[in-house]
């Protein structure tokens, strides 16, 4: 598996962005077992980059390839398989079903391609301190709790790439560390690449490469 970006630049960015960025307009290859940290201030395109790699947006020039195939040319079914089997994500805006319970939210993702048995949901929820929220609707959970739920959801499927878009923005240090620990364990178990986009350089993510956007 290899995820690669080739001369990537959002269509709404100036060409001059490529002069200062270590990502835009460059040729980059991300391999298995790599931990990639991307640091950038607000508005510099972190979420755009994560969404591009997840195949959610196409408003860019250049290309992104997964195992040599341009993800922009995936059919809708191929894209669904890509998301189900190969790539997982923690969205900045979490994207949970607010009217459904935490347990239901997690089961919806787990059953799609069960990497873990159903019992693992409770175990992970206990580790991240949200086990007592499993029967609550997501909409009534705090943002910090929702963030942990979104993290657990991302770990219930098989993946070769894990995309994290400011996953700890509403978590305290203790909870961030617990969540990071869980994500690292799960990623290592799969030999996956983790691409972590954040506002600042954080020491809790043991990155192997660092890029400034």
């Amino acid at each position, binding site marked *: 598996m290899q995820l690669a970006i080739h001369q990537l630049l959002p269509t709404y960015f100036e060409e001059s962005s490529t002069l200062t960025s270590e990502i835009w307009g460059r040729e980059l290859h991300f391999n298995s077992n790599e931990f990639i940290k991307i640091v950038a201030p607000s508005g510099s395109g972190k979420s755009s980059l994560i969404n591009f790699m997840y195949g*959610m947006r196409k408003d860019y020039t250049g290309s992104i390839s997964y195992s040599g195939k341009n993800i922009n040319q995936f059919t*809708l*079914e191929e*894209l*669904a*398989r*890509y*998301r*189900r*089997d190969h790539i997982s994500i923690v969205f900045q805006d979490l*994207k949970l*079903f607010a009217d*459904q319970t935490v347990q*239901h939210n997690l*089961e*919806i*993702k787990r*059953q*799609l*391609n*069960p990497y873990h048995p159903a019992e693992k949901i409770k175990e992970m929820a206990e580790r991240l301190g949200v086990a007592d929220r499993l029967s609550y609707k997501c909409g009534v959970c705090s943002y910090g709790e929702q963030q942990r739920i979104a993290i657990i959801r991302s770990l219930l*499927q098989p993946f070769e790439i894990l995309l994290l878009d400011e996953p700890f923005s509403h978590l305290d240090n203790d909870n961030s560390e617990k969540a990071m620990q869980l994500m690292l364990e799960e990623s290592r178990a799969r030999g996956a690449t983790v691409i972590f986009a954040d506002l600042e350089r954080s020491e809790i993510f043991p990155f192997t490469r660092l890029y400034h956007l």
Partner: protein
Amino acid sequence: MAISFKPIRPLLQTGTSPWSRWFSYIGLALGVLLLLCCVQMYVNMQKLTKEANIRKNGYDYVAVTKNVSGETTSRPEQNMFSQQDIDEIKGQSFIEDVAPVIANQFRVQLSAGELLPFQTEFFIESLKNDFLDTIPPSFSWQEGQEILPIIFSTDFFEIYNVVFAPGQSLPQFSRKNAAGIRFLVTCFGNGQQQNFVAQIVAFSDRVNSVLVPESFLTWANTTFGSQKPFAVSRIFIKTKDANNPDLIRYLDTKGYSINKEKTILGRNKMLIQNVLSGLGIFGLVVVILALMLFSFYLQLIIARSKDNLSLLLTLGYSPRWLSRNVSNRFLPVYISIVVIALGLTQFAQWAFHHFVMHDKPELSPFIHWSILVAALLLIILSLVTNYRLVRKQLYKLN
């Protein structure tokens, strides 16, 4: 492991008002019922009209003449069929064969010797053997043969026995006796005269005439006849179904006359067919309207659940799987509707058979297999239209 639709079902928001759904269910049920009943009645009618015909060798043989009107009375040639007319009739897809009834073109006189003291001017005709209902082996003639076999119309025979003989104080005959009588047929023409001994060899229910073998009339017309151009006043047609509406329509258009009794069923059938077609089309329109209403309802569900469905796709759910499962969600409803309509159609058929047709054996009290096929097709049609609609909507979301 197969993905379960159970956790997905609560994400589809059906809205609070079930009215539109129930309206479409009821509309669909009525439309399907109307359609199935029409198909069943159509099948019933086909069976009834088929059984009502006396058919031989699977064909009907019907005499056709031209309508004699006030205008054509003085111009008899207009009441005759030309070779061109016959060729045109033969060319119709619903007519298997045509045979002209050839008449004598010379003077014929009939007498019965001493047994029946009478003498009358007479006529004889001939028709292709294929078109005759009874042909005994003795019905043939060769030049030089004195005995002339005759096939006599059953109707004529009955008129003689019931009307003519009592009025004229003549003896009545059984069929067997009549076959034993020797008549004297005298042909005149071209300065010649020749006697033949005629004998009834068979009776015909089909042809109202006095028929002689074709070979005799061909010879006699040449020998005694005036060699007029080909023209016949009556033809017989051979058809698979004398009640075929296309045939009746064609004969009506051309102004040809046909035995009304033979086609009365056909004429009624045509009328009922039109009524049933109208009802069937109405049923189809109701089905289509109900399906449309249902598709609006589905679109409403999709519009209301847009965010949830979009998120499912984002999470990696296949649009094809989702389309199939969202549309299949209504499969039990469709099957229930069609099964109820089938049950009601079966009941209607039983009631029709029992109360209207008084358990007539030609008709079955059970629905025809084509009704089951139609029901199955309706279920498939609704599933396919729903699947396509949902898929289209979901692809728009992605």
